[in-house]
């Protein structure tokens, strides 16, 4: 019988991304759940913190990142639950492909969902509270933060869907280890919002990049251990 060569790393990764995006474009399940959740979080903060003109300058970036962090866990849980539902995870693992390509594909898919939500929330937030969030520096911070978040989140969600408590466990595992990322992202965003000098923002940007590099490479290396049996 004719046997084929094993697909390349990039091809596998793109196939996984294509699969997640196609399914999502059709059902819009993950996106709509994340977006509605994000909007509700913003709404609740509005009343809880009374985001008035005087206070909001200092809390805006905090509210923004809490919103992204919470909405992010919904997306991660949904995206991994889909792999478990009809046993698809087994299907992926039986394919003759590099497993870190599967990880990276899932991670990029999750990053897309997160960025898609941010693309809606950030302009909306700007309009609702009359602050301009559309600054290149801030958008860079949002991207760096989202990369680290989906990087570590994809790994931990892969673990948590395999436990008895399933989606309940993800925030408990994820939040304590993303604290440095969230702190750095909040501080860097606030720095750009308040137009602080670059010297004040730089340490936070560095921390974000260090976090992204460390956790993406570690997740990449250990992913095999959380899917094998």
């Amino acid at each position, binding site marked *: 019988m004719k046997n084929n060569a094993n697909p390349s790393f990039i091809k596998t990764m793109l196939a996984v991304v294509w699969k997640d995006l196609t399914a999502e474009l059709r059902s819009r399940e993950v996106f709509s759940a994340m977006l509605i959740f994000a909007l509700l979080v913003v709404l609740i903060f509005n009343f809880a913190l009374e985001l008035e003109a005087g206070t909001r300058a200092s809390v805006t970036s905090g509210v923004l990142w809490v919103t992204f962090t919470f909405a992010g866990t919904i997306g991660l849980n949904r995206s991994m639950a889909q792999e478990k539902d009809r046993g698809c995870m087994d299907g992926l693992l039986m394919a003759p492909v590099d497993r870190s390509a599967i990880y990276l594909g899932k991670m990029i898919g999750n990053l897309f969902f997160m960025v898609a939500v941010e693309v809606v929330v950030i302009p909306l937030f700007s309009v609702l509270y009359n602050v301009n969030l559309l600054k290149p520096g801030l958008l860079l911070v949002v991207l760096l933060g989202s990369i680290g978040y989906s990087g570590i989140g994809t790994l931990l969600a892969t673990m948590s869907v395999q436990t008895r408590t399933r989606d309940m466990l993800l925030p408990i595992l994820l939040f304590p280890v993303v604290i*440095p990322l969230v702190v750095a992202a909040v501080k860097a965003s606030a720095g750009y919002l308040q137009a602080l000098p670059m010297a004040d923002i730089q340490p936070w940007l560095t921390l974000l990049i260090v976090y992204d590099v460390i956790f993406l490479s570690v997740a990449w290396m250990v992913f095999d251990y959380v899917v094998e049996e």
Partner: protein
Amino acid sequence: MDGGLFSMMKLKKSLLILDVITILLVASAAGLVFFYAPLEAVMGYVQKVFYFHVSSAWVGMLSFIVAAVAGGVYLKNGQRKWDITSYAAVEIGVLFAIIAIITGSIWARPIWNTWWTWDPRLTTTAIMTLVYVAYLMLRQGIDDPEKRARFGAVYVIIGALSVPLTFMSIRIFRTIHPVVINAPNGTSAAFDMAPKMLLTFLFSLFAFSVLFVTLLWHRVELGKAQDELEQKKLLSND
């Protein structure tokens, strides 16, 4: 048992000796703290909590490093004893981290006039404790012992990498926590230690480190015994 009863007896004996040494060390540390170290001029008696407070925090941190290293070794070679060691270290770590937080609060109340402040070290210790607890919850949610060990090892490594970053991220804020060693001159928060205090402090650190090793050893032996028991139960079921 191919290890032989003899080696186990020998192990038990050395562990017993270590037990005695540990008890003597911790008792002498307590003795030094109360009878040898001079009374701190400003803070008074409450400063004495500091010796065991820092030692506990040190053990809490040491446990994390040991747990992560053992976890890494487990992922490499898959031997059960490394998982048991990693798990044992986390259990000890969570205990000492909580002791450190409580003793810290006892100290902070009269000195900083608050039970809690969002200082980098305090906050990091609290977050470290949360990572430990998340680790324990993760293990509880998995039935297959091998998967439990693998997931635990992965998570404890992730945690051990993130905790120093957490510390750095909070450190960039100003801190009011006393910097004990190598305090820059003129830092109001630092206090100079008299030689007797320093000796007591270093001795406490040493005593607690030995205590950590002893507890870890006991816990690993217990873990191995649990493993054996589980195995026998399963075999008798068949």
